[in-house]
């Protein structure tokens, strides 16, 4: 499949600007690699590999400004700073060579960042060493041969126990992790929306309930290391020396208990599903008490991707997965869609048909501020507030004035900012939609997964959380919006169909939106037991200025309605057992009877076909 010789071709074919190579090689190789004549050679080979596999993201000069950089968050690392997140060395020290090798081999939380693992047979161990030497040559920090790079010890982990994990909760709360990571680790701490990394970029706090998304790996040892040494260049502190190892293990286990305990094996797999199973409830579905009803419904976790297929592209959506549950009874069906969001945007509005400027226009709108780091002093919200009118300066939950040092004025999470007042009011609210075909597909043909097509329309159960959950604690029961999609350019409100009821709640960093509708419908889709129904999802994060086609969406998945009654297999099994046994007895009796009648030696009368049929 992959051909290692790709690399040799790359090495042979790479004609690079020679002066850059000279500059790059000269200083550090003189300082570092003087004793070995082969040193320069190594850097040259490292450069060939780098130019083919890394420069498109990390930039030819290692400044992190490669071709893809402007469309990636987090941005590719700028190697000139010598700041590495995943290290065995304590805060303040450079990483060891082995740390850098590991980052390249394992990637950094791929696919939740763009940094892929290079364990794919493309780079052999010798080339990896060359590559590490080349990366180090980008930063003068590595030029000092005496710089301390002393890995910490990771003591043997105590066995994982639920009690230990519970004790870890206390340490977690005491240590102040919640200020950034939220009370139960969902990345919604009060300072989360204000955080930036050392390059001035907004940085998203990790969702501690999802270890499969961790940059530094989600195994116990990995998390211990992350918490001990911190992530250089980010607000994530290291606790080596500040907390005793027992406490670090305890927090680690608490964290892992949030996702059901540590997984076996070398990697942590995301528990994604492709079917959500609706279970039968034998009572009316009361939205005010839906939690109990949903307790029996198995959640299915579906991955989302940024909508980058049609114009209005969303290259770095905020929400990467949704958890879905479904219940039904004779008359009604209900879905609960939930996801983690660092802040509920319940001001402003949202709709599936809102226009989105093209990516280039979005960049232009910010006046190139995205690329202009000098334009400080601008008071506008770097996360992407884009209100035309200026709002109140003082507002109860105005984090912006607090942490903000009047920085770059660029708008990375929400390109498309017209600039404006410092206000927590968002132009676009959070929103969610469940998508179904308008009619049950006959055969294999489905509507186009992005809001349907002209021949095969979809129904969208849409909840604008700025409308249905303006007070997200109230959990008011209202009506959802029903849209018909014949393609994203042909979205129309559907006034004829059965409108679902909806109730939404935001709690501890989690949106939980419950939709309920009649199970059978005159105009739209009916949900019948023992059938598979195509289902898809879209989520809009107002904080990221997502609206219309700029959103996170899923492929088609399936909803399966468990049958009302599970047929009991016992009668059918007993019938089959008796029947087959009876036939056997008849056959044996027949053979014996023939045997007795004929001489034992001449069995030619026995019908062989019968013998085979019975076997």
């Amino acid at each position, binding site marked *: 499949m992959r051909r290692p010789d790709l690399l040799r071709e790359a090495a042979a074919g790479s004609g690079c600007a020679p002066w850059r190579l000279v500059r790059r090689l000269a200083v550090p190789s003189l300082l570092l690699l003087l004793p070995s004549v082969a040193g320069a050679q190594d850097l040259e080979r490292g450069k060939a590999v780098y130019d083919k*596999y890394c420069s498109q993201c990390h930039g030819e000069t290692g400044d992190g400004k490669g071709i893809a950089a402007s469309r990636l968050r987090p941005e590719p690392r700028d190697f000139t700073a010598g700041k590495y997140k995943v290290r065995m060395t304590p805060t303040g020290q450079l990483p060891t060579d082995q740390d850098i090798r590991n980052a390249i081999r394992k990637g950094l939380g791929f696919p939740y960042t763009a940094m892929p693992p290079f364990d794919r047979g493309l780079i052999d161990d010798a080339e990896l060493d060359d590559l590490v030497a080349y990366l180090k040559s980008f930063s003068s920090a590595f030029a000092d041969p005496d710089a301390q790079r002393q890995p910490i010890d990771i003591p043997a982990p105590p066995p994982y126990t639920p009690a230990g994990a519970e004790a870890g909760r206390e340490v977690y709360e005491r240590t102040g992790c919640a200020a950034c990571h939220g009370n139960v680790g969902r990345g919604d701490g009060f300072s989360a929306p204000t955080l930036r990394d050392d390059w001035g970029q907004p940085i998203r706090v990790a969702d501690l309930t999802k270890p499969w998304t961790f940059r530094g790996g989600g195994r116990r040892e990995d998390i211990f290391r992350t918490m001990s040494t911190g992530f250089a260049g980010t607000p994530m502190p290291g606790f080596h020396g500040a907390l005793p190892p027992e406490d670090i293990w305890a927090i680690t286990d608490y964290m892992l208990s949030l996702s059901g305990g540590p997984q076996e094996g070398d990697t942590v797999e995301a528990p994604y599903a492709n079917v959500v199973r609706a279970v039968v409830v034998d009572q009316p579905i009361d939205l005010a008490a839906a939690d109990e009803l949903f307790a029996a419904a198995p959640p299915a976790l579906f991955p989302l991707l940024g909508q980058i297929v049609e114009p209005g592209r969303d290259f770095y959506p905020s929400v990467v997965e949704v958890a879905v549950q479904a219940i039904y009874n004779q008359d009604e069906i209900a879905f609960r869609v939930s996801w983690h969001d660092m802040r509920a945007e319940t001001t402003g509005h949202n709709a599936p048909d809102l226009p989105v400027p093209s990516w280039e226009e979005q960049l232009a709108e910010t006046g190139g501020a995205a690329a202009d780091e000098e334009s400080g002093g601008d008071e506008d919200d770097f996360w992407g507030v884009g209100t035309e009118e200026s709002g109140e300066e003082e507002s109860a939950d105005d984090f912006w004035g607090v942490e903000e040092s009047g920085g770059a004025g660029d708008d990375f999470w929400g390109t498309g900012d017209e600039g404006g007042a410092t206000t927590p009011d968002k132009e676009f609210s959070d929103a969610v939609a469940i998508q179904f075909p308008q009619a049950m597909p006959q055969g294999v043909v489905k509507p186009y997964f992005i809001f349907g097509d002209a021949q095969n329309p979809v129904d969208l159960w849409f909840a604008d959380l700025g409308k249905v959950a303006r007070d997200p604690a109230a959990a008011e029961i209202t009506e959802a919006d029903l849209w018909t999609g014949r393609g994203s350019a042909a979205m129309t409100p559907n006034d004829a169909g059965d409108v679902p009821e909806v109730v939404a709640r935001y709690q501890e960093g989690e949106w939980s939106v419950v939709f309920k509708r009649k199970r059978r419908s005159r105009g739209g889709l009916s949900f019948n037991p023992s059938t598979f129904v195509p289902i898809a999802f879209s989520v809009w994060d107002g904080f990221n200025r997502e609206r219309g086609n700029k959103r996170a969406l899923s492929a088609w998945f399936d909803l399966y309605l468990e049958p009302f009654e599970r047929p009991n297999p016992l009668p059918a099994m007993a019938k089959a057992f008796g029947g087959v046994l009876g036939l056997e007895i008849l056959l044996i009796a027949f053979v014996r009877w023939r045997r007795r009648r004929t001489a034992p030696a001449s069995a030619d009368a026995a019908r*062989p076909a019968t013998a085979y049929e019975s076997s």
Partner: protein
Amino acid sequence: MEQFNWWVIVPVFAALIALRWRRTSMLTWFAAWWIGMFLVVRYGFTVPVPMSVVKLYMGLVTAALVAYVLTDAGRIREVTEPLAAFMTERRYLPYLAAVALFIPAAVAFGIYRDMTRVPQPPSFARTIHPATPAEPIDVHGTSYDLGTADNPYRELEETDPAAFKARVENGRKIYYENCFYCHGDVMAGDGMFAHALNPIPTNFQDPGTIAMLREAFLFWRIAKGGPGLPAEGGPWASAMPAWENFLSEDEMWNVILFLYEFTGHRPRAVELH
């Protein structure tokens, strides 16, 4: 030859030949062939054979073996004699009872499994490389006959290597601004959004994709994307964008040059008829 699991096929046939040579009884021979054929059909291919097809083949194999046995009275006797002995002779009685109970128990278990199996969603076997449209396609107002169209810049490779290189470089820029999210940083179909997609993005390193396609085919797929597929390609599920919405014709031809340059594959030539 990669489609066969040789380490299954070779031992099976070696065993069958050895049996022939050792002249075992007809019943053993019959059973050995049946099992051997089952192993070959089920595990002999690198691409797993669906169970329905396996059943069909095993039906044929059974019929052939039965026919072979039936053609000769001696063979019939060789097969039936031990079976009849098993069913009648006293010394086999415990074994007979065990077998007689085992078979209906297995059938009942099969029924249990069928009735309690968690149903799986219907699957759709899409045609990965459907035929190109017979009618010329329109891209940004230019009409392309896909039977004869070719990459207008391919010849630069020979005539003007510097211009060719510039186009490949432009293709690289387009690829890493647009395509790698799905097709992956090294074109192995494993980009950061790939895990959320079904069908998954094409792996261009795989010799079964762009290496056996013409550049005009790629041009069609890139310009018209998933929505441009015929029904057998499953246009409703493919996330492949219609790049005519974003890219000029030149840019599409350039990115094609880069796909081949990066993977080291060569496009299939246009057949002139």
